[in-house]
């Protein structure tokens, strides 16, 4: 008995020690965070932006040639409420996208890296006009661009849709490496959402047709819908991990120091997301962004970057429009019928790429009474000038919170 008494505390303490070792719960992917990003203010000489239409500062302007032959002047070119009061889209006080606003707030100029349409593109057109601007062509974002798939949205219609993987490679080709004075902004994946959502919608339509025809049971239909959604989510996971790898191996490993990576917002919170054909699958649309964000976070865990969570930021704006000076976040400010008329019937979807807000201009395509500063959306997904201002303000606040500016 004596030995038992002396021994049992040892047994117990060993057990407690083992229990305390813990760590037995499996890790939940995406629950970590980046670490080790700079905390001191940067001395920025360039804003280097990679992404899609939200970050596009005029890649496709020649598609909006007034003469119709790709030559200037252009009446559009950015996915917002373009304003051509002084001629060129990028030189006007209105119609700026968030990348330009953010650069301007740092006293910097940023111009498109590649401009063109229908197979003819020019690298750094700003340098051709003014050689001193050669270092400003660091806005790589292109409408329709995906993370790695070169076949972006609109590619077959003549848009270059240079994927982010190539955008980054082009920067490295041109500049050799990233600099610690580059403010690097990576905001991609929206077109992967649209592509995967399109795939899901097509599958869902077929499943519903089969169900209506009585060829499958309701349970079978549910299962097939679940599977279709999983397939779309897996593709989003792949895209997110590819983007995280690009950030690690092609930006951080190549000298990138101040790197901000954006999550995707909830695209359900747009006129597109609230359109009658999308409403039944809104939750799938939301899940695609969430899946991307989860795996992006997972891929960037422990990496020296900062994440700007647009999902949370845009939710706040969408839920509290008044606080951000927005009076309308449901109706696009660009008039699809007017755009169709101005483009001679070529553009029927109301794309803001062709939307112009210049007062009195014959190619003005703004909805009567719409205000590009107080209406949030230019078209079904892209922000107006006011919408972009909210984004750049929010991002600037984040960069300030990081201690970078």
């Amino acid at each position: 008995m004596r030995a038992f008494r002396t021994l049992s505390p040892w047994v117990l303490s060993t057990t407690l020690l083992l229990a305390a070792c813990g760590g037995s719960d499996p890790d939940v992917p995406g629950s970590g965070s980046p670490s080790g990003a700079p905390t001191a203010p940067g001395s920025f000489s360039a804003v280097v932006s990679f992404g899609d239409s939200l970050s596009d500062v005029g890649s496709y302007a020649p598609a909006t040639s007034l003469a119709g032959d790709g030559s200037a002047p252009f009446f559009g070119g950015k996915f917002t409420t373009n304003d051509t009061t002084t001629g060129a889209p990028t030189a006007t006080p209105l119609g700026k996208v968030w990348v330009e606003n953010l650069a301007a707030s740092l006293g910097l100029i940023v111009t498109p890296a590649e401009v063109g349409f229908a197979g003819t593109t020019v690298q750094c057109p700003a340098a051709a006009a003014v050689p001193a601007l050669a270092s400003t062509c660091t806005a790589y974002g292109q409408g329709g661009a995906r993370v790695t798939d070169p076949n972006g949205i609109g590619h077959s219609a003549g848009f270059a849709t240079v994927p982010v993987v190539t955008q980054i490679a082009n920067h490295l080709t041109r500049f050799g490496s990233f600099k610690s004075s580059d403010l690097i902004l990576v905001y991609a994946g929206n077109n992967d959402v649209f592509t995967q959502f399109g795939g899901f919608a097509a599958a869902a339509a077929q499943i519903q047709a089969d169900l209506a025809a009585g060829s499958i049971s309701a349970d079978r239909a549910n299962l097939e819908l679940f599977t279709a959604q999983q397939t779309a989510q897996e593709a989003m996971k792949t895209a997110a991990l590819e983007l995280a790898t690009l950030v690690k191996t092609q930006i951080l490993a190549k000298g990138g120091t101040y790197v901000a990576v954006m999550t995707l917002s909830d695209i359900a919170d747009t006129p597109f997301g609230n359109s009658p054909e999308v409403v039944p699958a809104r939750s799938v649309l939301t899940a695609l962004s969430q899946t991307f964000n989860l795996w992006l976070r997972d891929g960037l865990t422990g990496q020296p970057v900062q994440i700007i969570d647009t999902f949370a930021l845009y939710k706040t704006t969408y839920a509290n429009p008044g606080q951000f000076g927005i009076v309308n976040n449901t109706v696009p400010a660009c008039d699809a019928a007017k755009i169709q008329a101005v483009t001679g019937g070529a553009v029927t979807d109301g794309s803001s790429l062709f939307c112009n807000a210049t007062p009195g201009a014959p190619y003005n395509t703004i909805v009567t009474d719409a205000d590009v500063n107080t209406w949030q959306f230019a078209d079904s997904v892209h922000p107006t000038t006011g919408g972009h201002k909210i984004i750049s303000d929010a991002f600037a606040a984040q960069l300030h919170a990081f201690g970078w500016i």
Partner: protein
Amino acid sequence: MKTISSLLVAAALAGSAFAVQAQDNVFKIGATRYDTHAKTSGIEGVGVPPGADVKVGDATTVIFVYERLFGPNLGAELVIGIPPTIKAKAAGSVEFLNATGTVLETENWSPTVLFNYHFFEPGATWRPYVGAGINYTKFKNTKSSLAPNAELGSSWGPAVQVGIEYAITKDISAFASLAALKVKSKVVASDGTVLTTTVDFRPTTYSLGVAYKF
């Protein structure tokens, strides 16, 4: 594995420290019904409909028990079973997923150390006993038809049992026991989505077998 082997060492040490007396080693073998009585926190994950859940099934296995007796009434035993496979079916709003088969399947490794008090004197025909101790549960070879990477966290928890032995000969007896364990495990399954739930197992095991004293 490190934690399990440490526990075995601890149990072995507990045994070896005592003066040997006649018939203070007992080896038991038996069949066990493992009623999981599991409750979950519901399945959460991106793209998972609200109200999704799983229902955890029961299992049957064979257990091996080594008990070291310390004096006439006390003993310490280590219970190890052939790991039963526990299966879970989809429930709640995602019941339709069962068409794909078992949504979750896992092997339950569950060594338990119990300190027992045996009533009556050695040699009595009927000897009831009660015990309390600690259970370590580890889940291995977890598979899910929903996500290729599925893991269940391991668990430490208390264990209690009541049992009775019936002496057939001096060396051989039959036993029956009822034990209750507390096992809590976090489940994470990841693929395109990441599914998480916490399963609160309150398993009751019913065992029946033979014991050999030497």
